[in-house]
């Protein structure tokens, strides 16, 4: 099946001359959850705005469901729901009216039952007659999601949905996204929290300086880039790594009370067996051993550093 979203060499230069997107190419399959990970100013919001019609692309093209977002904007935009980064709501309007407005704007006929379902799912039903200014920050964010879902979009953009949101609400948001995935909605979310991408995404794209540095299956990414560390706690502290163990990638830690062995999980031979027998051969007693997988965060920091260099 053709990807639901196709971005081809998309570039955006703002009026001041700043190039915020330097040629982004990306295909997104229907039903997947893609996390776009990048520091502030990476171009995440610009990418979303250019796809959704809030800014115009300088060059390149985007199709949604096969429709060009500029030439066939009606068909393309009908498929898209957008939850913006900023909480933009009319303060004196009720939740119900504002959600209803969005549905109408997207050309869908009035359907109170559908809106009720959306509001209930987002725990907003008892707030439907409240003015949006009376709601808490988290509730406002939910209203924005309800608006974006009001016309049954096939693709949902969530621009930093959990920025400045407390831990509980963040977990809530993750549940909502998982729910949407079950319904077959394609979700593209931006974040600068790595644990968020790690927790909910199928694929992760890393963006910095207006360029997509990589897009990869989350688990594959972690396996490919993932290094593991084996920490060996010693009975007797060492002053330095013994010369007999020089062939291993070892560093001393905890003031010599532990040795840290770094190895690559993708290699067939990790060298652990050899290391352990070399240790016992050298007469070094072990107290405990543990391993740790490097997180997406370390991968991410490494990539961004590389691209800056």
């Amino acid at each position, binding site marked *: 099946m053709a990807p639901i979203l196709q971005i081809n060499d998309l570039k955006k230069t703002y009026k001041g001359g700043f190039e915020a997107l330097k040629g982004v190419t990306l295909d997104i399959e229907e039903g997947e959850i893609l996390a776009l990970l990048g520091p502030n100013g990476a171009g995440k919001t610009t990418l979303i705005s250019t796809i959704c*019609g809030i800014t115009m692309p300088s060059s390149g093209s985007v199709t949604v469901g096969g429709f060009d977002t500029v030439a066939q904007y009606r068909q393309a935009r009908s498929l898209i729901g*957008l939850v913006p980064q900023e909480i933009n709501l009319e303060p004196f309007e009720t939740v119900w009216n504002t959600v209803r407005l969005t549905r109408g704007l997207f*050309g869908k006929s009035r359907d109170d039952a559908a809106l009720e379902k959306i509001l209930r799912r987002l725990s907003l039903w008892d707030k439907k007659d409240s003015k949006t200014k009376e709601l808490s920050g988290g509730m406002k964010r939910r209203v924005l999601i309800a608006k974006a879902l009001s016309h049954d979009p096939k693709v949902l953009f969530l621009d930093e949905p959990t920025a400045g949101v407390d831990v509980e609400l963040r977990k809530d948001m993750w549940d909502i996204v998982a729910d949407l995935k079950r319904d077959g909605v394609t979700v593209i979310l931006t974040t600068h929290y790595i644990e968020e991408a790690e927790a909910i995404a199928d694929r992760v794209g890393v963006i910095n300086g207006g360029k997509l540095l990589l897009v990869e299956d989350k688990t594959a990414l972690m396996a490919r880039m993932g290094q593991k560390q084996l920490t060996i706690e010693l009975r007797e502290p060492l002053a330095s790594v013994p010369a007999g163990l020089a062939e291993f990638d070892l560093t001393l830690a905890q003031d010599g009370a532990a040795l840290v062995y770094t190895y690559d999980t993708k290699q067939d031979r990790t060298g652990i067996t050899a290391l352990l027998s070399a240790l016992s051969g050298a007469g070094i007693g072990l107290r405990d051993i543990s391993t740790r997988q490097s997180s997406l965060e370390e991968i991410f920091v490494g990539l961004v550093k590389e691209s800056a260099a």
Partner: protein
Amino acid sequence: MKLTAVWAIYRYEMTRFFRTLLQSFISPVISTSLYFVVFGTAIGSRIQEVEGVSYGAFIVPGLIMLSVIMQSISNASFGIYFPKFIGTIYELLSAPVSFLEIVAGYVGAAATKSLFIGVVILGTASLFVDLTIQNPLAMIAFLVLTCVSFSLMGFIIGLWAGNFEQLQLVPLLIVTPLVFLGGSFYSISMLPPFWQTVTLFNPVVYLISGFRWAFFGLADVPIGISLMAISGFTALCLGIIWWIFRTGWRLRD
């Protein structure tokens, strides 16, 4: 054109109006009554008649135009400036709607509000003076066209304005003087010849003249020219708005 989207915008804009319906009703009633106290009674007692019409009745069309023009501009400019100001404009820009649908929704709502106020003023005025309307159809047509065209103009101002000062600037510096000097309270023929010529460059003169013709059958300029003027003005505003949406000027970066 997708009517669902137009209706969604229209309805949404009108709910704000209905929330303050009483206020929207009372303020034109009070201001019209004040005008009659000042102009109709104080000045009118000295002027008596203009071209066979009592001065009190003579100022009614101008009075309605004055309010309707100012209301159309402020309603429409605020209507589109507000979403820009609070950021909800993202929704319009990302919706599958054309510029015509957005304009029809916002301008339609703004024009409806000022039409309502025009009718309230007419009703209030009829309590003070005897009014007979010679060409009711022409009167309604002029009123509606004025509401629409000046709402279009207000919409442009709202799109253009970058802050609240700019939002007030055009109405204050350009529209108010043009409207006051447009013959609301006097006939052009009462002016010295030089000023009569100058006045013909004021587009509002054509509106008020045409509107007054619909009431009393007397006009400063021929009715055909009045009609052409207002149609031309409407077309000009539509053209400017079309250009704004096509280029994204002040809307899309």
